[in-house]
């Protein structure tokens, strides 16, 4: 809640104006039954036609005034809600874009997406409703009670018993009902999960003739969904009829009590009628409060989910080491020249473990990784799945910080760079990297100053010229989301072109040629050697042929370096490497 109000406070001036207008409109609404009562009890018996028409016109005038006020206020509220949510979404998107790897792990992708969409819609609705219904409902409720008290204190006492009764029962039911909906959501998740499993695994399901089994499994989940959904809906549909019932009982009491008071000369008959109208208003008020109650608990949960992302701290802060401050250009230059003889990239006794849900994992992903790489030379990393190959890249580009040891790029600790400065040095293709729904040119240029000519060169180097040439619109060809209109090999080649396009200082290819056949893969490596000889290259691969000709090769096993050196050296003294070679090459 604090989060939402924090965003609304910016508009406090406009909100105050809006509230005043809404208040005026709603308050004026109370005049109408009052005038009606006056007409029936005072004017009609006096048989004064002029006075009566004046009163009638007054009623109509008030009604039109009420409408204008309400519409103005509603529109202001809508505008404020839309501006608020625009800002919130903007903040959230920017923040999500800059989350570190471990922060993204903490939430997961689907959850981050739903915070951006359905949660933001909940908050948006809340901001609007709280400004309109949030004013109207309490006024209808309290105002209704006050007016009835002024009209006839005795009769109004009936309300003092009923209203708390109604509010209590409605709130209790809603409180019970809201958690039920969470359960429904869980059941729905199960259904969606089973469907997704069957869609992705349809070949397996069909090949093993498990259709009946899957149908039965789904049927159970479906039935559970039915029963929890029914329960939740039934519970939540109760407040309406119950409210109506209690109010109608109250009405009856008012009529009977009113009859006594009329008989005793305390009350006028028109008052009873006015009471009926005010009862209706009070009922609407209670209804509104119930809606606000449900809405608030929903919006509160959503706002909590949004703000927990926005409030994430800066995970990867830039620290300035002993040898320089940011902006201290001379010092920086000095450092660079000092480093002429130092390695360009180095891992110094680096160990790393993931932090999961605030707790550090027990097992180290990488232990004591130590290697160096000179400018313009190449490094291959090979090893079993889960041996920590990708983690090396994650640390090098500072998606995560090393738990122990230090990572050096261009003579400086990666922590001393601004993140953008560090990453500018890289051209990278990640494992399962993403093609965006945009033209091939934009996918390759990716916001950098890469003109069509340069992009085409990169495409040629990445061995993609042939298939890009087959598109009528060439580089202007539009890729579908996730490159769905391209084959795996085509996607990988476009991704490699992206990595090459800006002639990076460091090229990182993480398992990015797995969908390429050996021939293309070999030609690609040759091209990189010839055209990018100033670029330091790091290639991670499963295939030994992809890395065997590189200047230095690291063999990783369970987070440890078990071999390092050139192909020939490793063949001689690294058993794991030899094994891999034997299997792949016979």
């Amino acid at each position: 809640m604090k989060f939402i109000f924090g965003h609304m406070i910016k508009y406090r001036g406009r909100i105050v104006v809006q509230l005043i207008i809404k208040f005026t409109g709603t308050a004026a609404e109370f005049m109408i039954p009052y005038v009606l009562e006056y007409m029936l009890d005072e004017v009609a018996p006096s048989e004064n036609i002029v006075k009566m028409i004046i009163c009638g016109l007054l009623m109509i005038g008030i009604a039109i005034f009420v409408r204008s006020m309400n519409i103005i206020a509603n529109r202001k509220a809508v505008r404020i809600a839309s501006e608020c949510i625009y800002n919130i979404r903007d903040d959230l998107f920017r923040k999500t874009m800059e989350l570190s790897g471990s922060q993204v792990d903490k939430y997961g992708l689907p959850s981050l997406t739903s915070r951006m969409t359905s949660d933001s819609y909940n908050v948006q609705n809340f901001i609007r409703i709280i400004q309109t219904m949030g004013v109207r409902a309490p006024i209808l409720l309290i105002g209704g009670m006050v007016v009835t008290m002024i009209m006839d204190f005795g009769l109004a006492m009936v309300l003092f018993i009923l209203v708390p009764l109604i509010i209590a029962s409605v709130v209790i039911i809603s409180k019970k009902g809201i958690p039920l909906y969470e359960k429904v959501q869980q059941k729905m998740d199960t259904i969606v999960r089973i469907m997704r499993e069957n869609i992705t695994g349809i070949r397996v399901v069909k090949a093993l003739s498990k259709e009946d089994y899957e149908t039965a499994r789904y049927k159970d989940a479906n039935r559970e969904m039915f029963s929890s959904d029914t329960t939740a809906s039934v519970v939540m549909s109760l407040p309406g009829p119950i409210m109506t019932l209690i109010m109608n009982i109250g009405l009856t009491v008012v009529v009977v009590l009113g009859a006594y008071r009329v008989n005793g000369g305390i009350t006028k008959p028109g008052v009873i009628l006015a009471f009926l109208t005010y009862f209706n208003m009070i009922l609407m008020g209670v209804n509104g409060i119930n809606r606000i109650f449900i809405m608030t608990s929903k919006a509160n949960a959503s706002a909590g989910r949004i703000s927990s992302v926005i409030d994430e701290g800066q995970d990867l802060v830039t620290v300035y080491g002993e040898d320089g401050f940011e902006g201290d250009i001379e010092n920086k230059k000095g450092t660079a020249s000092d480093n002429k003889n130092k390695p360009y990239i180095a891992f110094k006794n680096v160990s790393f473990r993931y932090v999961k849900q605030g707790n550090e994992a027990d097992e180290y992903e990488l232990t004591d990784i130590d290697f160096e790489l000179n400018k313009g030379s190449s490094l291959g990393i090979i090893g079993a799945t889960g041996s920590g190959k990708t983690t090396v890249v994650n640390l090098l580009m500072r998606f995560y910080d090393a738990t122990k040891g230090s990572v050096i790029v261009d003579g400086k600790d990666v922590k001393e760079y601004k993140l953008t400065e560090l990453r500018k040095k890289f051209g990278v293709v990640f494992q399962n990297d993403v093609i965006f729904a945009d033209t091939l040119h934009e996918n390759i240029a990716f916001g950098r100053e890469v003109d069509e000519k340069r992009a085409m060169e990169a495409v040629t180097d990445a061995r993609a010229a042939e298939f890009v040439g087959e598109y009528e619109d060439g580089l202007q060809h539009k890729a579908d989301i996730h490159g769905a209109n391209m084959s795996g090999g085509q996607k990988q080649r476009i991704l490699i072109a992206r990595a090459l396009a800006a002639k990076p200082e460091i090229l990182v290819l993480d398992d990015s040629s797995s969908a390429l056949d050996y021939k293309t893969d070999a030609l690609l490596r040759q091209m990189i050697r010839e055209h990018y000889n100033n670029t330091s290259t790091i290639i991670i691969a499963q295939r030994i042929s992809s890395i065997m000709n590189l200047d230095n090769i690291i063999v990783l096993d369970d987070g440890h370096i078990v071999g390092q050196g050139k192909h020939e050296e490793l063949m001689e003294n690294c058993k794991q490497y030899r094994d891999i070679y034997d299997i792949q090459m016979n």
Partner: protein
Amino acid sequence: MAQNDTLRKKPKDTKGTLLKLFSYMGKYKFAFFGIIVLSLVSNVLGLLGPNFAGSAINEAAAGVGKVNFDRVFYYAALMLGVYILSSVMAIVISIMMTRVSRRISENMRQDVFEKLLRMPVGYFDQNQAGDIISRVSYDIDVIGTCIATDVTQILTSIVTVAGSLIMMIVISPLLSLTALVTIPIAIGYTVRMKKVTQPLYSKRSKSYGKLNGFVEEMFSGQKTIQAYAYEEKVEERFDKINYDAADIYREAEHYGCTIGPTVNVVNNLGLALVAIFGAFLYMYRLIALGQISSFVLYSRKFSGPINEIANIMNELYSALSAAERVFELLGSEEEAADIENAVELENAHGDVEMQHVNFGYLPGKTIIHDLNLKADAGKLIAIVGPTGAGKTTIINLLMRFYDVDSGCILVDEKEIKEYRRKSLRGAYAMVLQDTWVFNGTIFDNIAYGKENATREEVIAVAKAAHIHSFIMRLPQGYDTIISEDGGNISKGQKQLLTIARAMLYESRILILDEATSNVDTNTERRIQKAMRELMKDKTCFVIAHRLSTIKGADRILVANHGDVIEQGTHESLMESKGFYYSLYRAQFE
């Protein structure tokens, strides 16, 4: 994609959709009948309430000391009884309605799922999982909610409007004339607003869909975006989409938020007219005060539903388009049924033959040309070639995930079309590149292909696939629950699980489609013995990138651009120095 477009362009068939919807509701016609009768009674009772209230007030209005309390009590009791009964019935109706509508949703969800399992595999290649799932998670939900709330609302509205009007006329035909002013205003306004807001609302959902898609895409590429410092460009683009979404919300609600106050003003206008006119009539003693009271109450009830109907129309509209999407899926073409007198393929021997097979996924785009292949029982057939060369297509044809366009495929010298599909597929075991596990225990995942597999059997194959020690290291061992996207198990380990699964499944023909592509080389070496064991005495079709894996194959098919361009053994292919030769050489460069 192309197919999707044609589906979308199909004209909306409202009548057909309604008919299908009614057939779902028809199953519960007695329940619906009960609901209709009950809500009629309940609403009529609710309408009688104000009448009794009016009578009671009339009695009370007799003046000081002149009130006939017996009459007041009589009417008050009637009023109370009618209201209680009506409320209780309303609760009963809502429970019945909820049950029926949720039952209909359940049936629809079940039908969609069973339908999906009968669809050809190609359907899932062409349609996105997210889109299919949204029909179950979102569309069916919309339909269910619509049936539950709107049907009752419509019934209530009709009864209330008609009933109120009748009561108003009964009370005072003259006063009822005021309705002639208010009704046209209310209806006219509603119709106009619907025309204005309808396109705005559909624009709004489109804009939300765009936001959703953009966010999903960018979040999934977040790491890449950071790596290339692309954030600003993305944020710029998001800014526009975000602005549009906020703006169309504002625009739609700008008009939408006038409906409530306007209906209110029409109500109050009606009230004022009744008051003025009523006071006149009262002056001329044409009406009693109590009658005006009842009339006021009825005229409130009368105009209420007009507002509701506008809302209901919107909801009905969106429910109809949701239903259309669901029925479109339910109406899609299924996998062709087995031919008449198809036979079971039992105890297959394992001879497989392809004769002059032509095939293309899209009409006119043949990608397999005149393919001939003979695989005797127990032989190892390898298929190699660059990505996209059509290797997986051959597998799709063998398992009859797709039917050939011309030519034929024989298993045990009989055309595969003459077998029951299930039994044909039962003759194959397979391990695919896209490993698939479902949310369940590791034991269940391995035992998936074999009913009543014992723990010992499962452990034996897990050991053979070199996944046993990994499993034992997990907190719950074989009872550890894993899931499709679960982070607790790597891609390579998933593949080992599926290998173990295939080992447990007894069959005569085996398909290995890049079966060890995600397994690292060390593990691959370790499971080689088990793989050989798995392949023993079986007709095997192996697709592999690593040519070393398939050197010993009895026959190697070399595919490129969808054609099988070379066939032979490793030696003969190397000798001919063709495409295979160059592929093989490439791994050493």
